[in-house]
């Protein structure tokens, strides 16, 4: 693994941290001994990439307002020891460890959890590209076409902001996002970050509009409907990358604020890749 990476607005350094840490850097270092006997509470996630994954903590953190010290375990591969008050993450190798697997789990899963728990961002499960200096988000169910549409926009020359997870935050009543990482996966391979994309934005970008993708028959019209109220809230909440049951009231306020700040559209996408140009043009008319 390289010595430096970019992910979610941070530099990842694999060097020992200096006395004075860079504020935008997270330091990633190996530890040989994993102490976890004092962590009695285990919160299981759904099986991911056919791996068992879970959090270990001292206490049941659900419904608490914060969680500082925890271990994220990818069974048989790697454990990450985290303290959200520090800018340092330790990893411990298990018997199926490889650098490539560690990189995948660190960037794709661990960092979004870490940056959620330290209140940096609210993550959405979304593809996102830059159009007219604003972020456009594509949300929807599995197989709704988020990656396909993101890929189509990239081929049209737009800049990638996120292939899968996007961290957002509110500043002066506007919603911004921090681009995730320069990898794009327009296919489904296990534990694979995807292809490195050259046209990737690193600066923070204001969020423009959000499109909820709804697949329809191949010969149906490309139709657009503006969502309001509960339905708008529902699609945003459904697209929340991870709800860790921490700080729930603040997170509810945040998602409601996003819902009140941004336009969200439901777009019906015909199940026919030859008609993506039509979808593309229709989206552009709403920006």
């Amino acid at each position, binding site marked *: 693994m390289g010595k430096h990476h970019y992910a979610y607005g941070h530099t990842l350094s694999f060097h020992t941290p200096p006395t004075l840490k860079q504020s935008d850097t997270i330091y990633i270092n190996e530890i040989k001994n994993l102490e976890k006997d004092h962590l009695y509470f285990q919160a299981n996630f759904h099986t991911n990439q056919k791996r068992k994954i879970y959090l270990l903590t001292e206490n049941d953190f659900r*419904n608490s307002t914060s969680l500082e010290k925890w271990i994220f375990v990818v069974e048989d591969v790697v454990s990450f020891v985290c303290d959200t008050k520090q800018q340092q993450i330790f990893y411990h190798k298990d018997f199926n460890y490889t650098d490539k697997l560690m990189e995948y789990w660190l960037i794709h899963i661990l960092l979004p959890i870490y940056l959620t728990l330290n209140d940096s961002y609210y993550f959405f499960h979304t593809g996102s590209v830059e159009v007219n200096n604003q972020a456009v988000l594509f949300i929807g169910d599995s197989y709704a076409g988020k990656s396909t549409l993101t890929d189509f926009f990239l081929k049209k020359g737009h800049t990638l902001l996120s292939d899968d997870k996007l961290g957002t935050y509110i500043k002066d009543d506007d919603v911004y996002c921090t681009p995730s990482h320069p990898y794009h996966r327009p296919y489904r391979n296990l534990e694979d970050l995807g292809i490195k994309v050259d046209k990737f934005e690193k600066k923070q970008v204001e969020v423009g509009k959000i499109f909820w993708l709804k697949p329809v028959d191949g010969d149906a019209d490309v139709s657009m409907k503006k969502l*309001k*109220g*509960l339905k*708008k*809230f*529902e699609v945003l*909440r459904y697209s929340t990358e991870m*709800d860790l*049951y921490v700080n*729930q*009231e603040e997170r*509810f*306020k945040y998602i*409601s604020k996003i*819902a*009140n700040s941004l336009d969200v559209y439901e777009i019906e996408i015909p199940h026919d890749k030859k008609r993506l140009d039509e979808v593309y043009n229709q989206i552009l008319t709403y920006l």
Partner: protein
Amino acid sequence: MTIQSKVNIDNDVFLQEVDDETIILNAKTQEYFSLDEMGSIFYHFLKEEDDLEIIVKELSEHFSKDEKVIENDLLQFLKSLEEKGLVKVT
């Protein structure tokens, strides 16, 4: 449940406005609901006041409606909230 009952909104129940709708999240069950305009008004009163008789009186004056009508609507509303685990009625 009667107009003399006391109502407490559960600590795990949160309320937010989205567009013109009021949305309630029950953090315990992860369910969320939308309230209509009257439900939203009832709920805001219940956040401040647990004496139903006072709420009925104030709303009756505010809407120039018969107290009995308001009382029936309020009790029906509370019953639906209680069924969803959003309030405790004693």
